[in-house]
């Protein structure tokens, strides 16, 4: 082993006893050792890790608390945003629509029930319900109102108010009809107020105003059971209702649609429904696809 290699091994504290002896024999040995010994005076100042760590801890751990704090703030911000979106969307109106031939039941926040007929819509506000029971209606619905504060049904043609009762409201084009089945119903329309007892109906059809007493004491309208009934109602309104329950268009140009119809038609069978309407009135019809043409027989 040459001199350089020995010295390198010595530097690395890596001499075996044989190599150590050889190293001590080197001419440079004394000089090297002297240098090595003198190096100890150049030691770095003392540094005690334990002590300095204690000094570091407060600096570090407040900073990590800051991280916690910042994270907490971020979570709080997200939650706050989430809640305000939820609250805001909760304060918006609830809107329920039915399509053609579709019936649906809606339960209101106070367990009052609304049976919605086809092609109709109601709107109410969930959040404000406790202070104010108010439903906007377009179309036809049967209401079973839980006893409580004043309950209002608002339509374009009039407002129906009850305290706890069952009644039917129908508001279509040129057709406004309210039937009371139970309890007392107050109707504001046309600038006046009328009170209805069970079995009574108020109609405003084509500008004609009528208060009638129904002979048949049903507890609920027939349309809930799949049948639309009419008592001396102009044909054009019967056709309108037919179009609410079947997807079709009816051409009635050739017939007199102001004729009064008394009877009913089923929601479940188009041909049967058409026959129920046309036969009593001595009418016929042609059907092609979803288009019906009425004609005189």
């Amino acid at each position: 082993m040459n001199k350089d290699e020995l010295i390198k091994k010595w530097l690395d504290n890596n001499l075996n006893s044989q190599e150590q002896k050889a190293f001590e024999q080197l001419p440079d040995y004394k000089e090297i050792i002297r240098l090595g010994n003198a190096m100890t005076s150049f030691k770095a100042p003392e540094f005690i890790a334990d002590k300095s760590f204690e000094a570091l801890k407060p600096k570090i751990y407040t900073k990590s608390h800051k991280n916690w704090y910042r994270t907490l703030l971020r979570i709080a911000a997200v939650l706050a945003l989430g809640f305000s979106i939820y609250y805001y969307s909760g304060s918006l109106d609830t809107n329920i629509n039915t399509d053609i031939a579709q019936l649906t039941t809606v339960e209101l926040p106070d367990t009052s029930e609304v049976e919605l007929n086809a092609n109709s819509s109601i709107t109410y506000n969930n959040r404000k319900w406790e202070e104010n029971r108010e439903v906007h209606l377009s179309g036809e619905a049967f209401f079973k109102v839980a006893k409580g504060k004043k309950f209002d049904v608002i339509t374009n043609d009039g407002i129906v108010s009850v305290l706890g009762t069952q009644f039917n409201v129908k508001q279509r084009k040129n057709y406004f009809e309210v039937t009371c089945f139970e309890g007392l119903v107050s109707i504001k329309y046309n600038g006046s107020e009328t009170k209805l007892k069970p079995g009574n109906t108020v109609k405003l059809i084509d500008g004609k105003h009528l208060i009638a007493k129904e002979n048949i004491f049903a507890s609920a309208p027939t349309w809930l059971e799949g049948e639309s009934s009419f008592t001396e109602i102009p044909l054009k309104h019967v056709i309108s209702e037919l179009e609410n329950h079947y997807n079709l268009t009816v051409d009635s140009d050739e017939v007199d649609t102001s004729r009064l119809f008394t009877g009913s038609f089923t929601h479940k069978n188009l041909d049967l429904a058409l026959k129920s309407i046309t036969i009593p009135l001595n009418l016929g019809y042609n059907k092609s696809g979803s288009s019906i043409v009425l004609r005189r027989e």
Partner: protein
Amino acid sequence: MSQPIKDNICENAFFEHFYKKYAKDLHNFLYYKFGERLNPEDKVQEAFIKVWQNCSKISPDKAKSFLFTTANNLMLNAVAHEKVVLKYNKQPQKSATKESPEFVMQEKEYHQKLQKALSNLTEAQRVAFLMNRVEGKRFKEIASLLDISTKAVEKRIYGALKKLREDIKEL
């Protein structure tokens, strides 16, 4: 070798252990490389703080190298190219009577020569040499702390020794 359990080091127990393991070596490294004037103690603390602040981005096996690199950079930011003069601490004599005044004088001169020669080394040589001769660290450990190969360490230390010997002879 155990696998790191998590991807980062944001845990108090780990950090404390990590600190106590490397703080002194880091301090000495900074001292040997940059001298005392630029507060190696403070830089040690600063470097560890930076490690903690970035703990979520550092994996356990990269922590040591991150620490040393950060500390080195902190120092470099605080210094231009200055010649580093290390303090010479006179070691207590074993017995004053045994040494003659001439001997003491000679020793003092020698140490001064050595001090001057040390400041003439390159930074790389000086650091490696001091870690080896003063701290008693072997090549492998120095290589690990400085993130270089053992061969490179050997080259620096041996080079340092050679240069020191020449310089002392000259002076």
